[in-house]
């Protein structure tokens, strides 16, 4: 195990170590993150990284393959543009976590703030608590699972991402509608909850939301507007 104490060492030194393909299989312990920005950004290999404390903006961004656990809260932009791997935060995540992320699994054990999963492109996000407004805005693909409630305008202008919510959405965004829970959706949700280590919840309590696909094509009724 390699330890980086950010009270003494720079975030750049940590990140450069994580950028080496040879970091694969290694374990890293990060101490005293103290809300610093860009902690553990750009990891490339199947490294296991444990962060003890709160992180600032953009933690775990662009992650590939690594498994990153944050024991604390995360600032804005957690796991932004993640490609693969796993990121877990035991506390809350600030706004736009998982933004534009292409793959991997992001688990928030607390609440996530506004714009969770904005423009997500294949990532799976599981939030034990609630999420803020404009979450999954223009979400393209991937799954967003929320055990709590959501803020306003959930899934506004959503493409083909699937959203599962156990609680209540405050409101749905444009072109986002509730859809039926078929067996394949229940299976998908069940498997993701297992991956995210969620137990003791009843899958039948979830509702599914997705695109009404009304924005996909030009509507001839609007012709007179041009």
């Amino acid at each position, binding site marked *: 195990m390699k330890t980086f104490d950010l009270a003494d060492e720079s975030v750049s030194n940590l990140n450069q170590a994580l950028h080496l393909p040879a970091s694969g299989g290694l374990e890293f312990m990060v101490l005293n993150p*103290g*809300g610093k*920005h860009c902690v553990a950004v750009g990891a490339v290999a199947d490294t296991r990284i444990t962060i003890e404390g*709160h992180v*600032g903006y953009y933690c775990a961004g662009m992650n590939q393959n690594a498994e990153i656990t944050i024991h604390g*809260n995360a*600032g*804005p932009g957690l796991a932004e543009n993640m490609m693969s791997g796993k990121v877990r935060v035991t506390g*809350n995540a*600030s*706004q736009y976590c998982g933004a534009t992320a292409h793959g991997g699994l992001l688990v928030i054990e607390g*609440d996530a*703030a*506004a714009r969770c999963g904005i423009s997500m492109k294949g990532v799976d996000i599981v939030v034990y608590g609630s999420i*803020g*407004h404009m979450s999954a805005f223009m979400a393209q693909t991937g799954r967003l699972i929320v055990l709590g409630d959501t*803020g306003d305008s959930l899934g506004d202008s959503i493409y083909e991402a699937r959203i599962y919510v156990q609680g209540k959405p405050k409101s749905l965004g444009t072109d986002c509608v509730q859809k039926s829970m078929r067996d394949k959706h229940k299976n998908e949700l069940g498997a993701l909850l297992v991956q995210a280590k969620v137990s003791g919840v009843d899958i039948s309590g979830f509702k599914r939301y997705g695109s009404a696909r009304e924005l996909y094509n030009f509507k001839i009724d609007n012709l007179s507007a041009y």
Partner: protein
Amino acid sequence: MCGIIGLFCKDTALESKLGQHASDMLAQMTDRGPDSAGFAIYRDQVAAGKVKVTMRIQGEKTDFVDVRSKLMQQFGNDISLKPLANHAVTVLPVDTEQAISWIEKNLPECVMTSIGRSIEIYKQKGLPADVIKQYEFESMSGTHALGHTRMATESAVTAEHSHPFSTGLDLCLVHNGSLSNHNQLREKLKNDNIKFQTDNDSEVAAGYLTWRMAQGASLNEALEAAIEDLDGFYTFAIGTRNGFAVLRDPIACKPAVIAETDKWVAMSSEYRAIAQLPGCEGAKIWEPEPATIYSWGDD
């Protein structure tokens, strides 16, 4: 980018350590605003009929010897004047209007940073750590405090352009963001006798609230109206004599986090400023909703 903080004591036992905790919070926001820093502290409320004014001296003289003798000549021995670096707090036994017009006319070397019965505002160019040290923020006690670290975007880096801004009695505002209709609004408010010291956008927000409250609105009502009338990005923390409020614009891009225990309420741009407060591990922590007013103390 800027950093803002606010700390409001719900438990009076915390008041003796307000300055220490609030200055720790402010120092944590250095990365967000290394240009200048400032803070407002509410403490030692003076009796009705008296007025407390914080002033910054500028120009060649850096002490308040002449200021003191002028004040005593005018108001007698029943005044107090406590200098702290280039700021000083004076308590005068007259009504507010009298105090303001006399200071404006007779102390041209002084700029008033706050006026009221309990507010004091200190602000200066430079790193937050230096500003905290210069004005001995750590050792101050009080009921609530707000602070700001500035990375300028809209206007010049000077002490005048630093936050907090105060345009009304015991009222102050710190702002992270930028307003887009401030010039138009400033002209409108000037017509209604709201005075401005700078061309800064945040000062207009403070002036707007003063204007609304002068018309009889409560702080909450003034903030409700601000959501309609202010255009731009903002997270505001606002202090009044007995209260503290937080408001984000309807899009809420600018960060904000609030934490509350039975002993205190704290807000900041980033969680790291709050993380070190006593009992934070048991606090209720959330990011304020867009266009939603959160307030404590008076309504």
